[in-house]
């Protein structure tokens, strides 16, 4: 059977290492810190006061259901900036089965030139 010591050996990657126990301790410490920080905030938190309401530049707050940002809109800005890239990729992924085969032929041709001609 697997010995416990074998499990606990550390991994050397060259510029760093990984030890299961150290990592376990680090995670516990991180949880502890998070717990303390949460406790600090919890003291001053009072329910049902002005403090719990969100502030939207003075605009009225909508219902929670209406405020949920839908999946497609989450990275709106990112996709807007990369519009050129996306248009290109859309043209590439056109869903035509013939083109799927064409890409295979193209890659084979390029590899052929690289391997055989050079």
């Amino acid at each position, binding site marked *: 059977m697997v010995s416990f010591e074998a499990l606990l050996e550390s991994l050397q990657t060259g510029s760093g290492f990984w030890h299961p126990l150290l990592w376990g301790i680090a995670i516990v410490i991180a949880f502890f810190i998070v717990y303390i920080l949460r406790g600090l905030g919890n003291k001053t938190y009072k329910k049902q006061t002005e403090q719990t309401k969100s502030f939207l530049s003075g605009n009225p707050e909508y219902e929670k259901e209406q405020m949920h940002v839908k999946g497609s809109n989450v990275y709106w800005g990112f996709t807007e900036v990369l519009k050129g890239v996306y248009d290109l*990729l859309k043209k590439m992924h056109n*869903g035509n*089965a*013939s083109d799927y085969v064409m890409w295979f032929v193209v890659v084979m041709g390029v590899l052929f030139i690289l391997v055989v001609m050079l």
Partner: protein
Amino acid sequence: MIYNIPYLAVVALVLIGLYALLFKRNLIKMVIGVTLIESGVNLFLITLGYRENSIAPIYTGSPGGIMSLPVPQALTLTSIVIGVAVLALMLSLVIHIYRHYGTLDVRKIRRLKE
């Protein structure tokens, strides 16, 4: 030169098959393209096993002499069997596609894209 004709036929079959796959819009024609490539590859295998003036590799009542290699023939048979299965599957999928899309044009069968 005469011995190269089967190889030329192989190249022609594979190229015609690829042409059908790349430029034909009808799904049935694409399926035919796949089977053409398959025939080309099978012909290639069979041709590889042939030796000049050889007889079929059957011992029963054989006249003696060189026999052509049986291994490529076995490979070809396996490939044909697989080809039948693939062909049946492709054709039944085409039937289903026609039911759902009402067309066999490959450019219109693109609900899955991007």
